[in-house]
């Protein structure tokens, strides 16, 4: 019990330390010493950067030994430079294919935020004056199609769904793509059941959905986006690897960035797969989706400017 009490006490302090760590660490006028490096290391690891956190710290220490880091201002700017170099370009909405609707397949592990992200994407594209159709190819989870249908109504979008439990997801996807083409929709967003990246047979099922979409509309799916939960840690990297090798993921959507989690795992994903982050989700309402902005993302990990603390 002594261990627990001690840990709890230390964690209490941690939270404060991290809390002002981000502002406190870079408040200016601080000398570079072992304590600062320790705090820095904690800051990076607790942002879920994973092994990259260790690498960055080593690199900073090396630079410091060579006298290339003078004050904490140098530390911050170097760190920001390093992080931006790993996650540079900002995102754009995908281009419309020359003919027919843009078909987007949405995949991810259970509960990552797929269905809600689709709702938000539908909202975004509708606002741009596009006609959106939703395909409810999650035929597995209880009430999944009902959930999507509510969002379709709120968006004034059409939906293709099956009323049968356990219907073939590929055939729902096929119908959605076909309907989108026939009805002259601009975008078809296909929702799929959550699945863990370790479930081979379920990844194969996704492969089939992809194939079948290609039969319905030439070149479909034009995009396959993996929705990641920003509160996930290093497992997100495995998710990205496995989904990408199964269904050629073309972009990431990072949901649930409205909490205190920083989503640092995307750096590891960039390192391994160079997958672009397209959008970030910052809440449960239709408007809570933005194009990914690397600057703002990095700000949340290592804030810019001195004495101002983190950006809200």
């Amino acid at each position, binding site marked *: 019990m002594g261990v627990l009490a001690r840990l709890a006490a230390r964690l209490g302090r941690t939270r404060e330390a991290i809390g002002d760590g981000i502002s406190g660490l870079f408040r200016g006028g601080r000398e570079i010493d072992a304590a600062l490096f320790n705090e820095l290391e904690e800051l990076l690891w607790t942002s879920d950067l994973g092994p990259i956190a260790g690498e960055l710290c080593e690199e900073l220490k090396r630079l410091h030994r060579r006298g290339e880091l003078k004050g904490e201002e140098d530390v911050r700017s170097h760190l920001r430079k390093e992080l931006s170099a790993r996650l540079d370009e900002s995102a754009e909405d995908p281009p419309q294919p020359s003919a027919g609707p843009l078909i987007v397949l949405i995949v991810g592990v259970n509960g990552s935020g797929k269905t809600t992200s689709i709702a938000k994407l539908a909202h975004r594209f509708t606002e741009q004056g596009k006609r959106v159709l939703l395909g409810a190819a999650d035929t597995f989870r209880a009430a999944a199609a009902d959930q999507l249908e509510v969002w379709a109504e709120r968006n004034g979008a059409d939906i293709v769904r099956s009323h049968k439990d356990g219907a073939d997801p590929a055939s729902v996807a096929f119908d959605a793509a076909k309907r989108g083409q026939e009805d002259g929709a601009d975008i078809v967003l296909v929702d799929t059941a959550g699945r863990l990246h370790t479930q081979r047979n379920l990844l194969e099922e996704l492969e089939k959905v992809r194939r079948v979409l290609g039969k319905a509309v030439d070149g479909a799916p034009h995009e396959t986006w993996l929705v990641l939960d920003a509160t996930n840690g290093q497992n997100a990297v*495995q998710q990205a690897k496995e989904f990408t090798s199964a269904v050629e993921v073309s972009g990431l959507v990072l949901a649930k960035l409205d909490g205190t989690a920083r989503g640092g795992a995307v750096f590891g994903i960039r390192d391994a797969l160079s997958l672009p982050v397209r959008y970030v989700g910052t809440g449960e309402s239709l408007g809570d989706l933005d194009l990914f902005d690397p600057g703002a993302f990095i700000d949340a990990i290592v804030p810019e400017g001195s004495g101002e603390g983190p950006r809200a």
Partner: protein
Amino acid sequence: MFESLTERLTSSFAGLRGRKELTAENVEEGLREVRQALLEADVHFRVAKDLVEKVRERALGDERIKGVDASEQFVHAFHQELVELMGPEDARIQFASKPPTVILVAGLQGAGKTTTCAKLAKLLKEKHQKRPLLVAADVKRPAAIEQLRVMGERVGVPVHSVEGAAPPLVCTSGVHRAKEEGHDVVILDTAGRLHVAEELMREVGGLAREVKPDAQVLVVDAMTGQDAVQSAESFHSELELTGLILTKLDGDARGGAAVSLKAVTGCPVLFVGTGEKVEDLEPFHPDRMAGRILGMGDVVGLVEKASQEIDEREAQDTYEKMVMGTFTLEDMLAQLRMMRRLGPMKKVLGMMPGIGGMAKDLDIDDKHMNRLEALFTSMTPAERLQPGLLDMSRRRRIARGSGQEVGAVNELLKRFKDMKKLMKQMGKMGMGAKLGAKAKRDALKGMSATGELAGDAGGAGGLGSMLGGGGLGSMLGGGGDMGGMPVPPGGANPFEGNRPMGSSSTRKRPAKRKKKPKRSRKGRKR
């Protein structure tokens, strides 16, 4: 990326093997490796740091065991520390002295609350003879009520909901209904919320103060990263948590969040979720979790699973046939299928120490197994019983039938012959006679009668050898597919030497073996 700790330590302790003492120096290097492993497993930075301090003291302190290999003692120390931190094992839901027992289930969005509520209801109903009532208090997420209703139907538990009402009213009316209808447990499924959403956090706190639940359970996704600490803290300060449930452990997340959570809340992990189906709720075992976090593989889990799923009689038959030399291709196919019942190959292999991390890169995936099985099923029963019939033209037919090269058929037959030869030798050595019937069965499972993992007793028959030496291993391996897999040849047990400390020795024999559950193909698919 996730190199297993065992691999890491093996290299960092390379010079240390066989040395009997831990020194301040070699311990530092080991500590660095373990710290890295903990962090990559998503254990919170500060928790990892603290653990390292503890183990440094422990490893160098007076608890040092003389005569034990330094690296083993070192891993043992970490394992123990983690087990202590995450324990005790006998966590339970406390029932109220005056029913109904009200259980509030809370957590972040998408953590698995609704599914867990249904799983819990099923468990309480079937294992504790309770009459639960599910209450749909998530009025926020679209179709959340409908989701719970469907799940409730699946487990045969009624679901209480009130159209258009706010959560406190839904819950109080649910408790009221439970009293009236004689439900002795009420499970409240609340909406997911992020801990920074102050209003929502106050809402759930208020709900708890109003309904006064007997148990307040936080559901956490095993894939959660460093943020687990902050969110658990907020929930713990708004609620009075009594227990935790960790979900989605059926994936490959190392689940380091479990350690952080326990440290922050002091609450025991009651159960773990291991799938999307309503029966996928299991008790929490700190020792297995420790092994998983340290990347040592869930050996105990594998052994227990093996003993549950491998049919006793079947194993006995195979064993006898092997020893008697009447082993046919038909038996080999049966053995293959028996093995596959343990689950997807990667999952099975992933549970093994030293292989865990590598399983992904090996070509022993289920496609490979499917190809193997296709070879067998393209043979006629007569051919399987009398492999001697298989001349070139038959082999070509089988190759065509299974969509593979003749080489694959030849390879399989060669494996079969090797296997048979090995069995014969073993029979000659009199091993069959020496072992009792029970020992034989256990040998086939890779376990000895005392529940210890079998060493050599199983000879070529053990589960270990299925993967390694003469048995299925040779079906899988041989041609270089298993390149680099650290399985000793000749049927020695791959568990030997690097099993997690403190697991098998402190662990009782898994409860009586169940007959293999009948699972339809469809059911297994999902």
